[in-house]
């Protein structure tokens, strides 16, 4: 198993580098000029050219690529064109809000969506099932930013319970930390919750019709034990798969959620960098996201063995 994990982690390196090369090439051919943005609207063309030269943006593609690659090999993601700060420093500043948001979203989504899906399957065809599915459809069809605005309007502006925006580090206390993150996590988590609840329901419906469930019932196993121990464990593999796949959607959703709730996370850093053509930052963040996504998939693979001992690597 350890050899497998080591192999998988090692295999992430070429994947991440391929992504990096792809992103580097894409940025090179994409239109847009950071020098023009820096120079501002009143700048002369000569000013823009000089800024471009001072940033090294007038060098050929291969020179720039190998220069960048050489620094990557040394663990240096470069320096932001605009802030003059190291990209690693900027990522470090932004990682806590994003990790916090995603963790809380995952906790909320999993703890609510799995029981919802299980109960909907158990009460198949009843009003409970329909209500759960209605919530799921709503969660699917409502954009994150709409949910965000509605939540902020109700819970911050009308009820005055929670703040509209911002982030407070957990080091400043759990309560302020949660106050800032509850609304964004709910907004971001609804789609994810809907996805997991629907998959859980569908898988559980399939499992609940299996012979061994009927046998368990006949043996007098309690309802809760039958649902959450016998059935859910056997339904876990597709659920875990969808949790892993949904993680990519969660990263995309975090970009929007961080903008709506003014959370200074990696999503906003990415958007700002793209709009300004801050190439080193875009490359650094994409590298990070691709690495994390590969790790999440590795985690999903390992969880399969936990839920289904027949799976071996």
């Amino acid at each position, binding site marked *: 198993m350890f050899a497998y994990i080591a192999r998988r982690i090692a295999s992430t390196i070429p994947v991440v580098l391929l992504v990096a090369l792809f992103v580097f090439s894409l940025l090179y051919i994409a*239109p*847009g*000029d*950071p020098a*023009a*943005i*820096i*120079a*501002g*609207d*009143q*700048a*002369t*063309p*000569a*000013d*823009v050219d*000089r*800024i471009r*030269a*001072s940033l090294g943006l007038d060098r050929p593609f291969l020179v720039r690529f190998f220069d960048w690659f050489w620094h990557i090999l040394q663990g240096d993601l470069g320096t*932001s064109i*605009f*802030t*003059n*700060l190291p990209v690693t420093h*900027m990522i470090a*500043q*932004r990682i806590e809000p994003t990790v916090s948001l995603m963790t809380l979203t995952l906790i909320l989504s999993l703890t609510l969506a799995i029981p919802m899906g299980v109960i909907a399957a158990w009460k198949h065809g009843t009003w409970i099932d329909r209500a759960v599915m209605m919530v799921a459809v709503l969660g699917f069809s409502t954009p994150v930013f709409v949910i965000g*605005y509605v939540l*902020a*309007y109700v819970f*911050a*502006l009308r*009820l*005055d*319970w*929670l*703040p*509209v*925006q*911002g982030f*407070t580090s957990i080091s400043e206390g759990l*309560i*302020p930390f*949660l*106050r800032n993150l*509850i609304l964004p996590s709910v907004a971001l988590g609804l789609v994810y919750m809907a996805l997991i609840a629907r998959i859980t329901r569908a898988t559980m419906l399939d499992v609940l019709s299996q012979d061994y469930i009927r046998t368990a019932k006949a043996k007098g196993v309690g309802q809760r034990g039958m649902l959450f121990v016998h059935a859910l464990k056997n339904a876990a593999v597709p659920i875990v798969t969808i949790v892993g796949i949904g993680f990519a959607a969660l990263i995309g959703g975090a970009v929007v959620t961080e*903008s*709506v*709730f*003014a959370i*200074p996370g990696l999503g*906003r*850093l990415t*958007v*700002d960098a793209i*709009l*300004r*053509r801050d190439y080193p930052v875009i490359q650094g963040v994409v590298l990070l996201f691709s690495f994390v996504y590969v790790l999440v998939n590795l985690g999903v693979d390992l969880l399969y063995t936990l839920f289904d001992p027949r799976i071996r690597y």
Partner: protein
Amino acid sequence: MIDRRGLLKTAAVAATGALAAPRLSLAAGSKTLRFIPQANLANLDPIWTTQYVVRNGSLLIWDMLYGVNEKLEPQPQMVEGHEASGDFKTWTFRLRPGLKFHDGEPVLARDAVASIDRWMARDATMGGVIKKRLDALEAVDDRTFRFRLSQPYPKMLFALGKSSTPTLFIMPERIAATDPFKQISEYVGSGPMRFKRDEWVPGAKAIFERFDGYVPRGEKADWLSGGKRIHFERIEWQIVPDGATASAALQNGEVDWWETPLPDLVPLLRQSPNVAVDISDPLGNIGSFRINHLYPPFNDVRARRAVQIAVSQEDYMGAVVGDDQSLWRTLPGFFTPDTPLYTEFGGEPLKGKRDYELAKKLLADSGYKNEPVVLLVATDVAITKAQGDVTADLLKRIGVNVQYQALDWGTVGQRRAKKDPPSEGGWNIFHTWHAGADCVNPAPYIALDCSGPTAWFGWPKSDLVQEKIAAWYDAPDLAAEKQAIKELNKAAMDHVVYVPTGFFKGYQAWRKNISGVVKAPFPVFWDVTKA
């Protein structure tokens, strides 16, 4: 004895109570001002970049030799006094005593000289003109420095105190020695606030802390002049990219002052009992329909006049700022309304009913043969998107084959610099806007320059316009300046250097417990207080 359910219930109630507790614990006290700026403060070198948000942050950190008051008159700020020779070729300045940088070092004449050098290298308008006429710029002693020029330069004080970017800020010599095309890496100034670099999260927040060593002037503050007294220990800039979120945060008391609320959200803000809304910048902005003079059809003045007489500024302003007519006015001229040099002389083509038939005729006379006209539209910036949509409609009405290219601002910034033919990656038209503060006279007004290849994007060339600009520079008094501007306005209108699409203003909004907010082209933090 409490059972498990009881314990859980109590914990839930306690948690809910704590979460829903009033915002008192989070709200900063009256010693902190929380401000949402117009844009992200991504860097802090006011010479390297010309972004207004950078200039605005820099006004807190660095001080200026001169600062303009609300009448746009340069007033001494770091300077105690000056002496100009009768021919305006020698200018001698003496710094105020007791000026200190944030690192405790005194401000010396050599710091001013190095800062002026760096500024001249980047300010294409006034700094560039001074540089061309400069024989020597030297520190005479620790507090005195002197310009010796080869030609007269009567506008020196305005240049040193201009608020348009790049603005001249005085930095320590070691920082000002940085290549003007590279960013500085230290933010040490002698202004009223020091920058907390350790708390800076670009894209999220920027913190300024009061500098106790700052000695304000004795006069009352007036825009960038007078005593810059700060009544807060900290000013926190919070970057909130989403307008709706910023509006909600202001209403909820999470921030104190929002520099640029969206016009659409202003009615909502006005309904809030705790929020005040008013015009932000009395000098406003001038919308711009920028034409490429190098290629057909607009290399022929008749084609440029065709679009000029078809432009309905009412349509543009309605699209840019909406129904609120207090925010805009038509502008048959190039200079900022309600400023001393404003004129409408020669502005007839932009007045009265629009004549599409005449426009079509002029276009035909220019030899236009239905070739595609490339319109670059930055769709991620509301003002340029609105103007671009109106222009596309206008061009179709007069029979132009429009090629609407929807891009982001970063791409437009790159494309507009291309001098290639429109069919090979170049362009015919793009839109932007100019801050009214930059359009009060020709000195900071690079968009009016008609020097051809070295002019601003579109590269207009007109010897007559250049002659009138020179006449303004040499004008000995206000009457002569006004005459020169009248003639310049007409010449630029006749040549259709660009087409102004109207004059518009924006709002600012703040909590009612904040007082002292003034209308200016930049946020003025001095003399603002919080109850």
